[in-house]
């Protein structure tokens, strides 16, 4: 029997390793540069290779005083968590129904939902704007959550439907003999078994939701509701003078949580990504 192990290829030569390390610096350095520059004194800012002589935090103070970074952070977090919560609920339920129902209508529904994968946001942006106005949802965080959820339904439903194949039917049959209702059956028995798929949905979308620029740019206006990415862009646009320090501070604040999340969960994260891409 073949066990799942992290297969090892051939031994790499020392030269290969050194070349890889050198190339990796090109990937690592700009991230390092971001945090380093946000802590540099203004007079050192244009001395690119100079390290900060001490931790200069005034760029952060300035960013916080000029724009409500804390509110932006909370907004981004709320939209991100709200969207992930909604997408997991609606897509897992839909995937379950599509995978288990014999009726041909559900097959058609599957293709209908999949068709959404190729529609770019830009194609729909004006009808959505009008829809937002008509539904009184424009300039609300709820609208963002609804749009992210709806936009992710094709991919997430596809993933859950595929994953349902690995969930044995016997589990459900025995539970329903015990008189378990359909909804309880799903939430108590089936949904926990879908955890790997849920993990993949969360990790493949969390960065996209957090880092998205165009949706809040189009549908939010009120500064009190703004998320971090458009905040950075607007802050940069308002600061036509070349005061990069506070902008770098804002960029650091918005990047750090994701970076920490990635570094501490990367084992699961990369595995989840792999489940999503290879099986999907």
């Amino acid at each position, binding site marked *: 029997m073949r066990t799942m192990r992290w*297969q*090892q*290829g*051939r031994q*790499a030569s020392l030269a*290969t390793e050194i070349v*890889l*390390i050198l190339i*990796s610096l090109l*990937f*690592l350095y*700009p*991230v390092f*540069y*971001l945090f380093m*520059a946000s802590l540099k004194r203004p007079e050192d800012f*244009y001395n*690119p290779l100079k390290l900060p002589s001490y931790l200069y935090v005034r760029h952060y103070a300035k960013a916080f005083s000029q724009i409500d970074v804390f509110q932006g952070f909370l907004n981004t977090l709320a939209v991100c968590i709200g969207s992930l919560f909604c997408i997991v609920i*609606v897509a897992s*339920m*839909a995937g*379950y*129904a599509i995978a*288990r*129902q014999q009726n041909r209508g559900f097959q058609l529904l599957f293709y209908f939902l999949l068709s*959404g994968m190729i*529609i*770019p946001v*830009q*194609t729909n*942006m*004006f*009808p959505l704007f009008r*829809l937002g106005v008509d539904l009184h949802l424009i300039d609300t965080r709820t609208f963002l959550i*609804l*749009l992210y959820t*709806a936009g992710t339904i*094709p991919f997430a439903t596809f993933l859950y439907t595929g994953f349902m194949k690995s969930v044995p039917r016997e589990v459900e049959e025995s539970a329903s003999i015990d008189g378990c209702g*359909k*909804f309880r059956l*799903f939430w108590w028995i089936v949904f926990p078994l879908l955890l790997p798929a849920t993990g993949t949905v969360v990790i493949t979308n969390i*960065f996209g939701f957090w*880092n998205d*620029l*165009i949706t809040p740019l189009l549908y939010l206006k009120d500064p009190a509701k703004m998320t971090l990415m458009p905040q*950075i*862009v607007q802050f*940069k646009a308002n600061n036509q003078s070349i005061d990069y320090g506070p902008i*770098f501070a804002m*960029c650091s604040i918005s*990047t750090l949580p*994701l970076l920490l999340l*990635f*570094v501490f969960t*990367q084992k699961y994260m990369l595995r989840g*990504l*792999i489940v999503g*891409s*290879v099986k*999907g």
Partner: protein
Amino acid sequence: MNMNRKGLLAGIAFAAPATILFSVFVAYPFLQSIYYSFTQWDSIRPPVYTGLENYKELFKDSKMIQAFNNTLKMTIFGIVVQNPLALLLAVLLNRKFRTKAFLRTVFYMPVVVSLVVTSVVWGNILQYDGLVNYLLTQLGLESAVMDWLGNINTVFPTIILLTQWQALGYCAVIYLAGLQSIPQELYEASTIDGASGFRQFRYITFPLLMPVVTIVLFLTIVGGLKLFDLPYVMTNGGPGSASYTMTLAIYVAAFGNNTYGYATAAGIVLMIFIMIVTFLQLHFTRKQEVEA
């Protein structure tokens, strides 16, 4: 009520939330887009049907053509350069060495960094008195010093390279997963048969990796076609229209000029373009796939 019927009703109830959300926020606006693309619409007065006028206009608009060309270049670069590079990186990262786990993390790191932040950081590094030109000067290459994002000839190639910086790790990790799923025995058997490293790659790795190639190509193509954040934040499409992409051109047509019908038509063209490219790509790569 019999069991079957009850089961069907439950199924409908389960599928309903996703179906409703998708219909209201994706499918219905899309159908509206198709209609609006045949109209003249400034969002103040009601849309006026003008037939194919918007589409004819698109092919005369020099900014739109520039945007289309740039988007095409981006797609071709993704297919011809990004994919082989990501695969090469994955093959190397699949070998045994001490810093492997660390390097895998580092190469993936930029994926986590948003395109907005990428634009800010690299915009700073690439500006005239930024790090790149500083290093070039230190190395005695003053002749190579230039305004990377302010020069018509360098701006878009630079943006393309930045998308590589951001996305290469993602593609490499997916390829790495594909490499891991190839049974080790195949290599052992072929080594006994005396096959060289390159022949192993050509006749074992590559054919078995084809499904993953399909996925990565699909992701790079769609990602490239939708590129918006980098040119929007770094250059706003400039200088002139040298770094326009389709999505940016659509955005500007709408919010700069209030020509919503026209912008929607451009959106439809972009979608048709995505459909054609991905269809060709799937058709081509699926043919190469074999079963392990």
